[in-house]
């Protein structure tokens, strides 16, 4: 499967966009640490035209001073939908991108077809700790993110020292992530009570061994969104598209097919 990388203009600003495949469009909102085309996208692109816009400050999308919080990113996402001429679109969001998808679905339900939230940030459950990735040295980060922290995948996504050609992008990405995730820390207190506004058929996908955002946070999404289903992926941590790409794509495509 071949994918395309290009720069599009969104409300007068450059945005890096990956895309691939044919079929009805499927918008994928990436998380805070992995913002490039993945083998899992190839699998989704077997049935759908997959669009992966890179959030401002990540990858090759320039940072934008006006983006100070998730609220601003929601407005940016609306601009992305407009630029891509997507009146109503199916959306998959991972982690930070899942939180974005949920906020968008709460505020603009008419723009979302089907919704897939994957180990999504955003919910808060009293008593459930949310470990701080900004405070973690790489070995600890791998433990939080992967069911198998010793795998080649884990050390390539979270190396002890980023390779020289990735250092600058990694630091920019950390700053962009800090803007959105530092305070309030990876959640918004009022989101849970607003989830009733989500009208889209919703699938919640969660890695069974997610130690960064534990399962009760996914269960909060399921309780809040009427008619939603929660599917656990075994042998999988916080990043199902990376750690279990086949299973992830199967589950998502099956749900999207209705």
């Amino acid at each position: 499967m071949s994918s395309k990388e290009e720069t599009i203009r969104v409300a007068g600003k450059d945005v890096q966009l990956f895309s691939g495949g044919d079929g009805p469009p499927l918008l994928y909102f990436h998380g805070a640490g992995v913002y490039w085309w993945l083998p899992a996208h190839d699998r989704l692109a077997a049935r759908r035209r997959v669009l992966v816009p890179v959030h401002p400050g990540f990858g090759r999308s320039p940072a934008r001073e006006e983006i100070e919080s998730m609220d601003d990113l929601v407005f940016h996402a609306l601009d992305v939908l407009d630029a891509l001429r997507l009146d109503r679109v199916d959306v998959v969001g991972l982690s930070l991108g899942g939180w974005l998808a949920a906020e968008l679905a709460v505020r603009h339900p008419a723009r979302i077809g089907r919704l897939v939230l994957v180990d999504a940030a955003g919910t808060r459950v009293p008593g459930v700790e949310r470990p701080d990735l900004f405070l973690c040295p790489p070995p600890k980060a791998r433990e939080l993110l992967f069911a198998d922290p010793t795998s080649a995948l884990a050390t390539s996504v979270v190396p002890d020292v980023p390779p020289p050609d990735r250092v600058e992008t990694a630091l920019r990405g950390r700053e962009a992530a800090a803007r959105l995730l530092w305070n309030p820390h990876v959640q918004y207190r009022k989101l849970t009570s607003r989830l009733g506004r989500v009208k889209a058929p919703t699938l919640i996908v969660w890695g069974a061994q997610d130690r960064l955002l534990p399962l009760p946070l996914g269960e909060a999404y399921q309780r809040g969104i009427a008619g939603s289903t929660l599917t656990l992926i075994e042998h999988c941590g916080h990043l199902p598209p990376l750690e279990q790409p086949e299973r992830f794509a199967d589950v998502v495509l099956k749900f999207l097919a209705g």
Partner: protein
Amino acid sequence: MQFVCFHLMPWPYLPDDFEAKHESAWLTVPNSLYDPRRGHALYQQYLDELVAAEDLGFDVIGVNEHHQNAYGLMPSPNIMASALIQRTKRIKVLVLGNALPLYDHPQRVAEELAMLDVLSAGRLIAGMVVGLGVEAFSYEVNPTFVRERYREAHELIIRAWTEPGPFHFEGKHYDFRWVNVWPRPLQQPHPPIILPADSDEGLEIAASRRVPTGSAYRSSRRVRAVFDRYRELAGKHGWTPGPEHCHLVRHVYVAETNARAREEAEPHLDYFWQKLLSYHRGSMALMGQSAPPRPARIEKADDLPLYELDFDLCQREGLTIIGDPDYVVREIQAQARELGVGVLVGLFQFGSLPHPLAQKNIRLFGEKVLPSLKRG
């Protein structure tokens, strides 16, 4: 030249195996290691040390702000300044804090500092600092906006002290419709300010506002580069800083002989670097990186994280000034000359240095060192 007797008020009772068991003396350090009863006695001793500096001829006594750590037990330096004002008559009081971006209400800083200035009949020197990276965790402040908040809070405080109130301060991070500090500061137009800096960005702020800056825990080579840059930036803003604008923080210890000075100071300096500054191990993690491997051959103190510094390296590179009165006089004169420094901010108690040694150190400095330096 001016001399500041400066204090961090550290916790000196961390266990010997602290580094092995704990990641850092900051943020995650369990506060069960703090004992309030010993803490009470410690505060008395530390205050006594600073108060003694007045009669020994120091120009300034100084306190410092840090949070959730064993390195310095003054989350509110203003409280300690208030205690010192009550126990002294003439000496100036430097508060270095306040860490402006940590506060959602910098008006409170303007108010408290104005109170201290009035209370002391105009003896306050107001430091304004950014705070450490780790303190963004302590106070849940988004580090992305720390510099912006610092600039804005600084402007708010200066305006609150100098413009007739009430007025509306309209900023991005701070928007206060009623700025009207009661009381106003006694010194006019406002208490002297110092903005310590290490980065170009920080030096630019100090240079553009024509206020003194300061440097700490750096080799003389590095301090020279920092102050040269500050002087260069000031030149671009149309003024020339004098020595009185360049503050230098140094650990200072005076004893009867060089050998005795080393013997008395070294274990407590080791405690300072290795235990209290172990936050640098954590701060590498904050950047998402592992600490770099220790180079096979150490050439310069600037190559090392602070927790790896040792006595000989610090003495050689000028980070510490420890010896007999003659050595200390000559070394301070040499650094002042080479670096263009006019204010020595001395740490006379550091790490686990016990009260009797700290007292002796301050007394010897006042009796045997200060007179020579004051004569020039």
